[in-house]
């Protein structure tokens, strides 16, 4: 089915949910970096988000140009029901696969 999500897609959709279902690309990037320490460049965020726009998981709109951005506009993304479903489905898969091995994986991380 068309609901399968890549890892970065999953993380960005989670970031979008955390930000209340609507956020700009730069906010998503920041959320991701804050919670996971993973640094993603804006270009990569747009590529992934636009792919999800095409799949109707999210919709996008542009804001007003601001001086802080050198007179350029901001792009915002909103979570769509299809995206929410895909995320929930994907998360369930991960959770099921992790059943019974979560403690072991945690120990690995603690050991590192």
């Amino acid at each position, binding site marked *: 089915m068309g609901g399968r999500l890549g890892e970065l897609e999953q993380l960005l959709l989670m970031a979008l949910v955390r930000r209340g279902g609507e956020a700009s690309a*730069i906010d998503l990037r920041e959320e991701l970096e804050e919670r996971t320490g993973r640094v993603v*460049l*804006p*270009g990569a965020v*747009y590529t992934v988000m636009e792919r999800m726009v095409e799949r109707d998981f999210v919709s996008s709109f542009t804001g007003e140009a601001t001086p802080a*951005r050198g007179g350029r506009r901001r792009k915002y993304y909103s979570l769509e029901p299809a995206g929410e479903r895909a995320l929930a489905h994907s998360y369930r898969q991960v959770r099921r696969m992790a059943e019974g091995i979560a403690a072991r994986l945690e120990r690995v991380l603690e050991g590192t």
Partner: protein
Amino acid sequence: MTGARPPRWARRLVALLVTGRHREFVLGDLEEMYARRRGRGSRRAAVLAYLGWGLRSAPRAWASKVFAGAGGDLRAALRQFRSNPRVYIGGSAVLALGLGAGAVAWGIDYGAFGRGLPVSAPDRMVAIWMVETETRERRYDFSPADRELLAERVPVLDGVGLWTWADVTLAGGGAAPQRARATRASPSMFDLLELRPLHGRVLAAFDAEPDGPTAVVLGHRFWVRRYDADPDIVGRALDLDGRPAVVVGVLAPGERFVSEDLWIPIRDGRGATGRDYQMLARLTPGVAAEDLASALGGFGERLPPDGDGRPPEVRLEAAEWVASLRATSGTRYMAIVVWSGVLLFLMALANVANLFLVRARARTRELAVRRALGAGRLRIVRQLALEAAIPALLGFVGACAIAAVALDWYQGLREIYAGGPISSWQAYRLELPHVAVLAAGALLSTVVVSLVAGLREFGRDQPGTLRAGRGTTSRFRLGQGLVAVEVALGGALILLSALMIRSAWNLRSMDWGFETESVLTGHVILDDARYPTPDDRLRFWDAVSAELAAIPGVESTTLATQLPMIRYAGRWGAVRAVEVDGRDPVLDPADLPLHYVDAVTPTFFDTFESPVVAGRGFAPSDVAGAEPVALVNTHFARRFFPDRSAVGGRVRVWRDGEPGPWRTIVGIAPHLWMDTDENENPEGVYVPLAQTAPAEASLAIRVRGVPGDYAQALRDVVRRLDPDLPVADVRSMPELIRFRTRTYRVFGFPFIWVGLAALVLVVGGLYAVVSYIASLRTAEFGIRAALGATLPELVARSVLAGVPAIAIGLAAAIACGLALTRGFSRFMFEVDPWSPAVIAATFATLVLTTLLASLVPALRTGRRLDLVRILTTE
């Protein structure tokens, strides 16, 4: 720190890198990320992070296409480097020189005008001045009353300060008396310049009140030097120009405006209208310089009038601080500096392009084979670019080193001639923007070189090349053109340099027409508080004269308000209105011509071993109360007494709008550079010091032996007579003249190096190209030799091929050089830019060096011909 934006150059660079569908949003995000990063750390770290993000945001697809298989090409390029190290190292050295020269030129301009004042918002700092409404000529300064009016009535100004330079005499406080450089300022200047004290406080509003001792704030360096960094200095009483003063604070290290030793308040009293001060102001945040211009419109009429000769119709103008500096000082000089750097860079570029052009030419066949085997244009250009990138990279590293060393040297030179730290907005050192521009220059050279070589390659008929084998006899038009450009640019700079060498030579060998080598001088100012009357002053001058003459080894002693070649802008001044008896009656004293007036003792001309030309000199009997007398110099006599002897005529000197007594001219004085080196025909008048009793004078003694050995004795004489009186500028006459002529050294002499660099580039470039072409023509030479051509014939053939390019280059060089030197005469001593000797010398140097550069490689090739090998292989 919200709202901070990356520097413009970084924004432009990143905008170039980022492409694609989301470009607008990515660029916006990067700017926002910069602002957030800037809020957490330093500007430098934020700029580096921003550049890193920009670089990594460059589209991968583009990059992968360009870099696929680049490893193989890189290895091939390195192989080329190993097999022809001389070409690559030569190219690297040339690029290092050109890029380095460009960076130094820009570094000098940036160091002078690029930074702005070291305050938190340098772009809000503005200079304000007054000009005549009609003509917009001459800038007029401001009074404390003007400052108060502007500070109150112009809301777009956040602060207004006044300042001026002042030479002061400092005594007491536990150190020997000394002359010091003060900035006399309104207390608001400390707030404007954000100057912080290390001890005590800075000047406050109440320090401007005219009562009580003058508050003094010491500069850090002066405090360390004069008071040995004594922390208890605050509160200590001093004697400033004979009046009581007190130290109220010491500034923190490095805190300064211009290179002042100390700060004193303007104490002209509230509402004072003497317009002696320059104005510095700070704009309210968010206000543009244009808003200030409109706010100042019509303000000129509201300023109180005064009697200093300011025209009634004035208007106020303003400009950003550094922009105003650029407008008043050295615009043309800086333009020439920057353009010289650009020219050197272009020459280096032409050189390297030429070098690679001949290399590509030598490899015509190899490249044709590669293309025949299916290598695309991109691959070929990429390989050429990688080959060009090696010298570009090495050149970049070399250029950074050259620029760092040269800018450091220039900073030192400026500090030596400033006698201390230079103004706070100036600093000459290699910085991140310079390195970025150097990198851009190196990149540009790679692109230009590979494109030039590549375009030539693709303009060729490929099957034809393969069929024809090594086509070496075809004309080499592009290369010839580059040689012509190089000779033209280099020649122009060499001409400039030749004029500078001439200037340096003139300075060294100048016969000033008076004794300099054995004369020691010092300068003394008597303050009004302790020497109020002419009698007091004369008594002191007489005593000094007598005591100086008594020093063993002193041959002659004199006192004068101005020494030959030296002009003190002291209180006495050097220029006065002079009226000649019998000339047309003058209705308004303001219409009288100004001339140099020097008060001297009778031994003046004897001390400088330059006797009077006609009549008599001053005698000991020419004292106050005796008949007023004067001498005029030869230029004065020639102008005002063209058809009769000036001796017996009469002149009188005006001062402060009042005429002095008529003085009988008793003799003609020799030309003694009364207006320094800036004026070869100064018209001037000498009067006896005993008849004018000036408040300041230079002491000069002619001695047996080394003048410097008498410095302590000279200081001791003054100290014995007045322990609180400092002697400033105790220096030998040659030292004073060197200082006086420092402009030529600081601003002119760097161009000698520019010329040498240009010469190296021209010769090196030509040599490399001709030797390469000659080596390509080995086979042709061999065949010609086999057919009976002699070595001189072969060499002449090779050299003559380059003559048209060199001739065109030479003609253009002289034209360019003369255009460059226009307006440069201020920095050249006694040199006529159109001097036939200099032009001929430059021309000869260029012809000789270019001929030699073409002759040597041609000769070398001709001598090493191995006929048997050539004839068997071809």
